[in-house]
């Protein structure tokens, strides 16, 4: 419980309607979209309306030593917004304005509470695109997406969130406000704090304004489905497409378990006996797209795809992508708990990773389906389980450990796009070593010496 005095200070700054204190409200900020996580009730939820208010709130928190948990829509998958130490949830959802779309500099300036899709709806009217598209585009905020450095289906050709963040306004842990970066393509003034704060999961500062890069929206696109009777062949096909200097916007894979589940769910015509399918989309100028589609089709056939199908029209295209988008929800319905990981490897190691996951599933007697962004090496091994079954959960944790070990040993990383949060904190030294973790800690302590910003995430306080 917070002292009455603290609440009064908060109400003075924000108004009573933007300070929630009743447990029936607080409990709805005790969780996020991460499965099998313990929930934690915050002591207060505040919703500032301006950068100045954020700064004031931070100063109050500093004076009374209250942890601050910044939160957008709470759709992350790493426990990143769970207020593990109570304190204050700082909801950024009322800072939800698109401040400017600059067609000459190809930038947009937005507040952190803007929903990604809302930005894309606006820029599309001008023939522009903000490419990062995590599965949660219609719900996730720009601030949350920046803080988790989310990726999505277009990573292979267009990169991920960090490639589109040009400038930030940040409230620091002492309540001071700074601006970094801007609309210029080139900027080497000082350390690159824009890069540092992107993906920092709200542990270093609170982002209150974001300048992002926009690109011209591609004129045309074409989707292709390829069916394989062998995971290795699918893996070789992925490498072969890239080696032939074609960079599809999207190159997705689904394994047999995923195919079977998805097909029963949406009836998209996926072959149930396939070992893997690849879903590919090329985009760009109409002429280029036509040519690339033909080339991709030929490569897939050369790599012994059992079947290659190019979507004839929007309806066929939509059905293919519906199948892909339904992967997670379809899998989620099979068992009560869905543990979704995002271990990532260099794309050449995809077949090794897929086979390792299959071995791990057999070894621990678990149901693991794998799908994901094959083109950028980002797989989503998805463990279907039940958190009420303690014995099975033990095996789940062992399997997760082994998946991460495998990813790192293949030259990959713990997390491609979901972030570390609470979920993967304990694995950090596997990837960085003790010295690396210590370096992380020194950065955290330089910017937030009292561990007030999203404490308990990424860096453990010792």
């Amino acid at each position: 419980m917070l002292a009455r005095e603290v609440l009064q200070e908060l109400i003075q700054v924000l108004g009573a309607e933007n300070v929630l204190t009743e447990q029936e409200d607080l409990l709805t900020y005790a969780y996020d979209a991460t499965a099998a996580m313990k929930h934690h009730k915050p002591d207060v939820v505040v919703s500032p309306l301006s950068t100045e208010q954020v700064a004031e709130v931070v100063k109050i928190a500093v004076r009374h030593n209250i942890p601050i948990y910044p939160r957008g829509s709470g759709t992350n998958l790493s426990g990143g917004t769970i207020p593990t130490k109570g304190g204050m949830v700082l909801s950024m959802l009322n800072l939800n304005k698109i401040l400017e779309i600059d067609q000459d500099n190809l930038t947009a300036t937005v507040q952190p509470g803007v929903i990604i899709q809302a930005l894309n709806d606006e820029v599309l009217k001008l023939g522009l695109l903000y490419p990062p598209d995590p599965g949660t585009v219609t719900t996730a905020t720009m601030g949350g997406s920046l803080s988790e450095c989310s990726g999505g289906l277009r990573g292979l050709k267009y990169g991920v969130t960090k490639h589109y963040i040009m400038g930030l306004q940040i409230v620091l842990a002492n309540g001071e406000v700074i601006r970094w970066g801007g609309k210029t393509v080139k900027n080497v003034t000082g350390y690159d704090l824009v890069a540092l704060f992107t993906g920092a999961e709200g542990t270093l500062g609170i982002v209150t304004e974001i300048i992002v890069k926009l690109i011209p929206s591609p004129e045309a696109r074409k989707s292709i489905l390829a069916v394989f009777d062998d995971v290795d062949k699918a893996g070789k096909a992925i490498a072969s497409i890239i080696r032939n200097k074609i960079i599809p916007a999207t190159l997705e894979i689904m394994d047999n378990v995923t195919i079977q589940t998805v097909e029963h769910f949406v009836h998209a015509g996926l072959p149930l006996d396939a070992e893997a399918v690849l879903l590919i989309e090329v985009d760009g100028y109409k002429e280029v797209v036509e040519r690339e589609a033909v080339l991709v089709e030929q490569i897939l056939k050369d790599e012994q795809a059992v079947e290659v199908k190019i979507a004839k029209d929007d309806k066929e295209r939509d059905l293919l992508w519906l199948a892909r988008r339904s992967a997670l929800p379809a899998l989620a319905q099979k068992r009560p708990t869905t543990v979704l990981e995002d271990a990532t490897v260099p794309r050449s190691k995809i077949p090794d990773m897929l086979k390792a996951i299959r071995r791990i599933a057999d070894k621990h007697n678990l149901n693991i389906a794998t799908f994901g962004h094959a083109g950028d090496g980002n797989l989503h091994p998805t463990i279907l389980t039940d958190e009420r079954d303690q014995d099975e959960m033990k095996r789940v944790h062992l399997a997760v450990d082994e998946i991460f070990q495998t990813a790192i040993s293949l030259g990959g990383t713990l997390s491609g796009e979901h972030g570390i949060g609470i979920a993967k904190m304990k694995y950090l030294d596997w990837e960085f070593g003790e010295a690396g973790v210590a370096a992380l800690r020194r950065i955290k302590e330089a910017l937030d010496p009292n561990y007030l910003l999203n404490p308990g995430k990424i860096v453990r306080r010792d």
Partner: protein
Amino acid sequence: MSVYNSLDSITEELHKCMKCGNCMAVCPIYKETRQEVGVARGKISLVEYLLSGEIEMTERLADRFSLCTTCMACNTNCPCGVRFDKIILAARAEAVRKKGLHPVKKIAFTALKMQRMFDFGMKTGSLFQGVALKHVPHKSDRIARMRFDIGIGTDKVFPMLASKTLRSEFPEVVKVKNPKMRVAFFTGCMINYFYTDIGKSVVEVLKENDIEVVIPKGQGCCGIPASVNGDVASASALAKRNLRAFEKLGADALVVACSSGGTAWKHVFGELLENDPEFKALADKWAGKSYDISEFLIHKVPFKKQGLGRVDRKVTYHDPCHLNRGQGINKEPREILKSIPGVTLIEMKEPGRCCGMAGSFSLVHPDLSVQISDRKTADIELTHTDTVATGCPACRLQLKSGVENAGIEEEVLHTIQILAESYRAGKKN
């Protein structure tokens, strides 16, 4: 086990929710408040804490459960197929079992059960409504605003009570020359007391199609206002009364022109009465032959196209939540509109977005209701039409209030009124 009888009935629905938050993309309340408790995920969590014993049912919790228009947009957008409408109804019924009904609602629902008193009250109200309501001059609708604030503001535009109720204007059996069918008409309260013009159009169109219309005098409120607020006892009593009244007169089919009434006859009566074998059987029997009027005229007895006269209207159609998502009816009204000579149908941006009326929701949360309505009004204005058609009298009230307060010249009508108008125009030629 139905959602009205036990909270345990929804544990499976709760398990399905993986907290992804996709409901945030479509929830009309959350779009306004941006508070987690407004959206399905938030309230699902609260029900989970309630079931696990972490919290108890309190009045404050019941307040949170009132934050839902039951528009079912979240159901449609849920990747895991969670039926949140079931969850919220079960939570509200549990709140009433544990904490009792809000005193104002208790009085209101009791009145609904006492048909004669209610009728008397409404008739007296029709004479004396001028005391509280100030008539707003309008060419086609009899509408008014509150003269003083009773807690819902004075901006809201209401329909005036009809001087004669619909059911008193017709005999119990409206005969036609060579009837091809005998159809019972469940009027619902809003059409009986306020929008008698909709009811008259229903009778007119059915007669035009050689259908004998039965309007049982013994019918009453559908009980939906009670059941969505957790007052299961009142809702069950009303369900039985209606079933008795219609069973007494009998009919080949039953039609409604109100999305709540349709939901009641098709789904809710059976669920409420599941533990009463005799009435359950009756409810199922009538559920099987209940139709929304547009559904009836497209699928059951295709309406006569000859004799349709020209009606010059630019129309946009608003999908009532309980007709569209609740009963899967959205093509039928459009098909009727498109077949009327002279009618141009121009779609608005999100025709299926909730108008924010949601019955008593608009009384409990008047500001929120108006905020949601304002978005709908803005979408309507962009269509540059002269008429909004819809399939539900409650939506009509809300839409009318919205366009009137925005100063937009727009008539708001039930689809069936435009069809009746067309038959009338056909006769003139």
